[in-house]
């Protein structure tokens, strides 16, 4: 099992509705290496879930390129997308209950998720999947008797039921207490390390983001910054534009002229042009 890479270039998605269109993503370019664990951050409405759904083939890009492993999402048919979701991409939706069949046990939910997997593809035993997320002892327990954290772990287990190359998880730690949150996060980390599965997860929780090796912050449909091991970086877009971090943007209102200079050390310095200079 190897993880799948994610590569997007100029990815645009527009929601069309009566009277007006809304651009949820405006030319996003991301590269995620196989086996990487990446968190998607950003305020509500920034486009995180849209990006996740695009990666899962639940939405079709309005423009741009989106490649998951060898899959070019924009050009795939519905059947090809189904096959991709059946084996290569696992999705965990926000709200654990939405991922599960309420009348099935964790074991049967995993089995249910494995139904569509292509023949010939090695499928892990449901118990193995549940063991991986730490829910092996509750395999046959009805969902109604599980704690919220266990239900979320079950949702994660369902998402990785076929050991896909990519796991897309939308806020898997939300609405959980700290302990449950940590268990879920640990499970996802274990999965990532044990299987080499690429994981792209959305979170609002700074504590969760802090422990993730890489985070990408999206704001207004664009990549605002990227974090590596707790440190934030601005990201230069493919068109050369540079979204400023919020605390810097507050200092530099729109229209501010910046002098860009480079130092001998190779640093790039942005200096606002003084009013006096302009005068």
């Amino acid at each position, binding site marked *: 099992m190897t993880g799948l890479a994610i590569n997007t270039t100029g990815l645009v998605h527009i929601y069309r509705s009566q009277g007006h269109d809304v651009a949820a993503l405006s030319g996003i370019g991301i590269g995620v290496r196989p086996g990487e664990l990446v968190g998607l951050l950003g305020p509500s409405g920034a486009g995180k879930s849209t990006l996740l759904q695009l990666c899962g083939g639940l939405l079709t890009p309005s423009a741009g390129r989106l490649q998951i492993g060898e899959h070019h999402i924009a050009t795939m048919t519905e059947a090809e997308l189904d096959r991709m979701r059946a084996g290569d991409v696992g999705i965990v939706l926000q709200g654990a209950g939405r991922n599960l069949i*309420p*009348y099935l046990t964790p074991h049967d939910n995993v089995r249910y998720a494995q139904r569509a997997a292509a023949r010939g593809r090695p499928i892990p035993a449901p118990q193995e999947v549940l063991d991986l997320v730490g829910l092996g002892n509750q395999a046959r327990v009805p969902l109604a008797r599980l704690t919220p954290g266990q239900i979320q772990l079950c949702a994660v287990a369902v998402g990785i039921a076929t050991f896909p190359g990519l796991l897309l998880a939308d806020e898997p730690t939300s609405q959980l207490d700290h302990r449950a949150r940590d268990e879920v996060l640990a499970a996802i980390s274990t999965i990532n390390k044990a299987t080499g599965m690429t994981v792209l997860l959305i979170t609002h929780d700074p504590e969760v983001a802090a422990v993730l090796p890489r985070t990408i912050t999206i704001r207004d449909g664009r990549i605002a910054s990227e974090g590596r091991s707790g440190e934030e970086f601005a990201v230069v877009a493919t068109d050369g534009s540079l979204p400023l971090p919020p605390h810097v943007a507050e200092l530099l209102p729109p229209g501010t002229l910046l002098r860009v200079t480079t130092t001998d050390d190779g640093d790039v310095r942005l200096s606002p042009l003084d009013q006096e200079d302009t005068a």
Partner: protein
Amino acid sequence: MFLRQALRYRWSQMLVLAGVSVLIGTCAAFAPWFSRAVEQTVTTETLSGQWISAAWQLDGSPPPFQGGPAKSSPPEELAKLLPADLQPLFSPPAYGMTVTVDWGLKGQKAAIEGKVVWRDGYCAQLVLTVGRCPRAANEVVASSTDLKNFNAAVGATIKAASTQYAGGGMLRVVGVYQADDLATYWFGRGPSGHSLPASETRPAQSDFLLTERVTLEKGTWGAHSTLDTRPLPGKVRGDDLDQLRQVTDESGANAAELNLSAQNTTGLLGLIDTIKAERRQAATIIPLVMVQVALFGVVVLALALAAVVDQRRPELAVSRLRGAGARRTGTALVAELCVPVLVGTFGGVLAGFGVLLIVRSTWLDGGAPLELPWTVLAAVGLAAVVGVAVVAWSVRAVIRQPISTLLRRIVPRRRGRTVGIIDVVVIVVASAGLAGALTGGGRGPLPVLTPSLLALAVGLAFAHLLLPAAGLVSRQALRRGRLGLALGALQVARRPAVTRIVAVVAVATALVSFAGQASSVADRNRDFRAGYEIGADAVLAMEVNTFANFSGAVDRIDRDRNWLTPVVLSYPSNSSGLRALMIEPDSFRRIAFRGEQLTDTDGFRALKAPAEPPAIEVRGNRLTITATPSNLVPYVPPTRDGEAIESGPPAKAVVLQATVFSQRTGSRYLVQFPALPLDNGKPVELSTRIDCGKSCQLIRLGVARELGDSAGLRGGIKIDKVATDTQPTVPLGKGLDWEPMQQPGGDAAQGTISATNGPANGLTLSLTSTGAALNLQNTRIPSAVPALVTSEFPVSQTQTVPGIDGIGFPVQKLDQLKSAVPRYTERTAVVDLETVRRLGGSVADTSTDFEIWLNADGLAHADQIIAELATVGITASIVDRHSDRVDTYGRSASALALQLTPVIGIAGWALAIIVLLLMIVTSWRSRAQDYASLRITGVPATTTGRAARWEQTGPVALAALLGSACGILGAHVALPMIPLFAPTAQPSPIPLDLAINWSVALALSVISVAIMATTTLLLGTGVNRRAGYARIREELS
């Protein structure tokens, strides 16, 4: 995979789906089963109730008489006419031989008409009062009435001669039998128990002389061979009727092929036509009735499935998320939902069979065999296919949505209020169907579907108007501070599912309302027709010798006419004439079925005999008249072409005549005086014999002419005095008390006569005579008797109807007949019995029937009435009962089929309640969350409770009222198209009363509204109870 868990998890939904499917399956299976059972029941009951008509009564004639011995073919030969494969369907043949003879005791003239009969096993059917059964040739047993009337005692020798052949023989009486009413053995042609002594008009007639077969075989009697057999009720199935018809129809031709001179007297062909007509009714009504319920069930199933599938959206999304394609996901869901649908549908077969068993033992009295016709399998198969198709259609509508849409908890809807295409299509189709029903002349199934179609169109239209109206109400209520109403109306406005509920409730209550109308109107019409056909609660028929005896007996039994009304019926000699129904208007209007509606008050007044002047009574044995010719001169009638008529010698005399009738015997007769010479101014006394020793009434005076004298004559005759040997003077009254009788042909050219006041107690007659007799009739008997004539009969000025003596009297049509004439609905003139009585006349027993019509009290005293009639020698029996006829109609295919209508009503209510439950089952959580949210914001529980209760109750109650109205209106349109009675060759003159039964309509409307409103109130209360704060946090559905 996981099917069992899925079914167990939503067992209540599965139960609902299975329940609706059971109903559909029950309808599908029961309709053809019941239709078939009704057909078989009608077949069995018709063959059983009219078994003599159904019987084959074969009569094989001997070879034509050629002077020599006539050897009859044995009756067993006749059995060849019945094919072997049909013989199991018939009763064992009863063989016989019969010959018509003239007989007399030895030494007397053979002047008694009778029959010598052998019938297989006859002796076991007789009650012998004297002697024994015949054992050898030429031994006979005679009836006890023949013993009484003709002295045919044991030991007597009878000389009998065949009336058609030269043969005959001497017969010896060895026993006397009492005729018994064993119709099943004799097939209606057994000994009558009566014999008639000779009278002036007919020879003596005897009962049967029964003998052994050898008697008729040995002699040269020329006996007829007979065979009686009948189709066995219960063994003959509906499928056998065509073959039976063909064989019966061809029996004459088959006999000719077999060289048998045989005739088949049977009414089987007509009965088969009747049965087939009833079968067609059953095949029309039952499927139409059940299809409505089944279609409604399918609509409810579709609604239920739509709700169920909508609730499955998260699971469908999960399946799609895990890579299952739309087809695979859809197939899995279809498989899951097909389980309850198919189990229910096929379970409905068992339910249908159970209902059939119940119906068979209750309504059909076990008259139908248990069988599995192919139509049941086909209908159930079709229902299953429809059920699966509805499941597939319901799933397909959702499964084709993109995953992103499936993931949304609330499906995005277009902004603004729009009417769905399906709703528009349904409204258009329903309206078109309704228009077709209203303009299509009642052809096809559409008229019966009118209530459903109308309710569907109106219900959906109302539902779509309801949503914006609810929004408006909500805003206004909010402005006025009525929060409960505002919230309830707002919930209605934002839940388009209410359109489905409203439409379904409207259709359900329309079905209920229509079913109630169909059932009650059909009941009323069966009662109505039975009443008109019978005439009263019961009818007694009797043999009467004299009218006086009859009327005297009736007066003695019930002078005040509290129980009965006497009716006399007189038939014309030709079948195209009018018969006279003579009634007592006062008692008839009270006792006869809807007698008061026969005509209006003026009509009854006009019908009744004039009260004045009093009768002219004549007593004695000689009637004397003193008359004086006055100015009688020859008269030449004018001609049209002006040519003179060659006239004979001038008249020399006229003949005065009078018509009297005896109050003792009722007989009416004409007496003629000797010729009155035309000596003007000279009084002449003329006398003639009369038979009025007790009392007679003078009803007519007239002037005739001598034989061969047709010379024209004009002038006057003064009748100075009329007297009898016991009455010095018979007062004739005034001239106005006499009016000319209508002349035969109504031609004034045949002469005229009138009367004016004459001498004291006398009259002056003015006449113009051209040879015909001219009569004046006392005005207490109208010269043309007022009559209410059934509308189809053209009545001319010269129309006559037969009196009780069979002699016609002129009638004058009153154009005041307001309804059908009870019992005698066609070719009938209703006249006043008293008027006819004043006219007098001997009873013509061949053309006059006497009846007493009874009301309920009279029927309760029927035995007493019959006994009292017997004391004056009148043998009466009840020939018809209203209740019997109602029962008979209650067993018709139409009635049996319409008995299903209460089932429709209950099914309609049940389905509507199921839909309400289903809508609650699938929406209560979100509604409870809505109300919980409102409570969090501070809205009191009482307010949310009021909103929850009235959210659906108001629209549902309104829809129930609308549906009831549609059902009533639909019934008004559809009822004339429902065959309530088997079709007849001629349309019945008894009108159908298809008026809406408003009491039933009102009751059912109230019950419908109460049931629906109560259900929604209870459900709303339940929803509000669940609107706790914890509800908001729920996630797992």
